[in-house]
């Protein structure tokens, strides 16, 4: 396929419009209110931290949801992984790097275990994940009681306070997903299973291993989210009765935006830009001093609006070009 000049321009437009447009809108609104969008370096940090956690959550959500596996347990994995990581680190007085590594490994193990249950129980992923969520939340409570607190050890809470760290997380996560999904056997098999489950299984591709792998990757992502969240305040609060499922809801908008941008670029890169959009909205609300109720309301409306656009693009396009649809 040859790419002409106009088509490159079109692609760039498709890639940039949403994130750049969102940032621009908030810049303008902030300017009107006499506020700078990025006033201090702290705003930049908030922004990148959001991009990082939202990107990771989006990768974790989409890797399974794209294959028709709905996973409620993401938030509980983040929570439990960070509890395991911090508890072990504190009990044995390990260095901060150990906490990162243990949390990440815990995330992978918890994700893989969730995948293993899904594979073994042969239930719809949605249902398995309900049970897993309850289980992981309860383990958090059993291990840590009310949670874990290490805010008094500043060396343990440095990670999420560095902008370079956040950028590094984003870059590594993106590079990881990009390479795994586009240049490894796992990724090829993933794509085949995603779109042609039966054909792929009949051909002899090991679906079970691939699925567990997906859950493990999602677990790694959520482990990282747990680590960032834990090091943000130095406290992890236990949560019961599905209190943890809210964590995954941030990922829907970026996921769909990612799907849209994915038409012009690589899918995962699109998701990062989706996360950028989400983070911009979030920071915008913080800068404008609007309450989080208003924010969740607006985010929900934006999500619905964007989906309406995505799912009715052709109808809308027909409407604008004046083409009529349907018989007399």
């Amino acid at each position, binding site marked *: 396929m040859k790419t002409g000049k106009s088509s490159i321009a079109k692609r760039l437009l498709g890639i940039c419009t949403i994130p750049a447009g969102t940032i621009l809108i908030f810049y303008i609104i902030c300017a009107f209110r006499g506020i700078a969008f990025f006033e201090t370096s702290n705003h930049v940090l908030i922004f990148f931290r959001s991009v990082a956690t939202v990107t990771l959550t989006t990768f974790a959500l989409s890797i399974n949801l794209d294959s028709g596996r709905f996973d409620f347990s993401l938030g509980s994995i983040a929570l439990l992984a960070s509890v395991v990581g911090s508890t072990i680190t504190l009990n044995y007085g390990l260095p901060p790097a150990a906490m990162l590594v243990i949390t990440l490994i815990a995330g992978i193990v918890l994700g893989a275990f969730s995948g293993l249950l899904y594979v073994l129980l042969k239930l719809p992923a949605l249902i398995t994940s309900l049970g897993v969520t309850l289980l992981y939340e309860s383990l958090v409570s059993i291990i840590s009681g009310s949670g874990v607190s290490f*805010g*008094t050890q500043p060396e343990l809470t440095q990670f999420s306070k560095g902008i370079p760290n956040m950028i590094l997380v984003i870059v590594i996560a993106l590079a990881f997903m990009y390479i795994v999904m586009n240049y490894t056997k796992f990724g090829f098999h993933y794509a085949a299973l995603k779109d042609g489950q039966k054909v792929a299984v009949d051909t002899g591709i090991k679906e079970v291993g691939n699925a567990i792998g997906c859950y493990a990757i999602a677990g790694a992502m959520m482990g990282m989210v747990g680590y960032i969240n834990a090091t943000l305040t130095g406290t992890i609060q236990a949560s019961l009765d599905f209190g943890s499922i809210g964590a995954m809801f941030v990922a829907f908008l970026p996921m769909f935006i990612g799907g849209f941008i994915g038409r012009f670029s690589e899918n995962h890169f699109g998701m990062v830009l989706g996360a950028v959009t989400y983070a911009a909205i979030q920071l915008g609300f913080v800068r404008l001093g609007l309450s989080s109720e208003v924010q969740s309301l607006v985010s929900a409306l934006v999500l619905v609006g964007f989906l309406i656009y995505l799912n009715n693009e052709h109808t809308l396009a027909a409407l604008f070009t004046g083409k009529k649809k349907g018989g007399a």
Partner: protein
Amino acid sequence: MKLNKLAAVVLSAAMAGSLLLTGCGGSGNGGSGTEGGSKVDASDISDYGINQNVKIGVLASDLSTAEALSFRAYYEEYLGSQYDVDFIYSEQLGNAEEEISAIEQFIAQGCQGIISLSSFDRPGQIDLCESAGIYYGVAAGVLTDEEQKAYEDCEHYVGAVGPSLETEYQTGYDMAKYFIDKGDTSFLIFAGAAAFGTEMHIYRVAGMFEAMCEADASTSYNGATEKDDIITAIYGDLGVNADHFSSDTFTVSAVNGYNMDDAWFGEIAEKINTPGLQAVLAVGNGSDFFGSMAPEGVEVGSVDTYAEGYLNAMENGQLDYMAGKFSPSIAPIFVAVINAINGVPLRSDGSAFMIDQGYWIATNADEFKTFLDSSSATNPVYDKEILDQYISTPENVVSYSDFESFVSAYTFDDIQNLK
């Protein structure tokens, strides 16, 4: 399939049928039914909790915070080992409906008393306990004056021990005063559940504002300078709206709610880094949410509980002022409920009592350590020795006034003198 359906129908029919049989006469068998009067014949006094097992249900809207866990440890581990009592904890209650369900469950299990740590619908709780004839006491909180008036004559409503709203107000006031006296003028107020209309948080915030108004007459919140007006204004704003604060001396920013999502932490991160900020005045847990993010030199005041984690915070300079609950503070209501069950209720002029109980204030790690040690489940400040003095026996019937002075002397030093 058929078997399945049939079984379902039979089961539900059986259930519905037996329910119909019980009809509306379901006041239940409830508690022990020992009628308490103001005059007691010493020989009628039972010995539940001492020689006879007693079951007390605990309504808890929170089972996972440090405060909740320390309360539970005190009841189950300390009192449970010292007295013949089983504390039955509810599930984590989320709303008024769940409170009622939990009480019904306690009644069905034959609890003789209920202690409430959950405040979605206190009148509803009392109503139900009264109709079931089961003793009910409020710990770590009180009723509003209106509610108290309406329910104080209920025979099975034992009373309430906890910080009154006035005390909450004073707690906020004292905290702000402490930092103002140090010369601080720039504050970040964490208004917590004031955003959800939680009264105790609103009163604490109001107290903070009042302290500032007192220190500088130019200060007002939404034009208000008086306690009641400030409270109304906070209700109206759903928490604190920093734009409504004006003062020549003080500057204030605010964080509301407990959303604990990215946006909320983002907001905290932004506001705690406001240049010139001197202190965080938190109506709740200040150290966890603000302490570790606070830049050098920003002090933190917190209203919370005496727990291990906060001691570390104080030692590390992430917490500078603590108005804290001590877990044995929920002992007096236990004593009162036991007395009621044993047929010697403690009545204030024949009515249910409402006794104010405040916080312990720690401003350095040593104080904190002392208070924390006195809150442990192994060696609490209210130990069996003290409590036994207020549990009536045929030999020693406790009077209400004795009990009242016992509860009112809640400061650390006062309690030491009780021994």
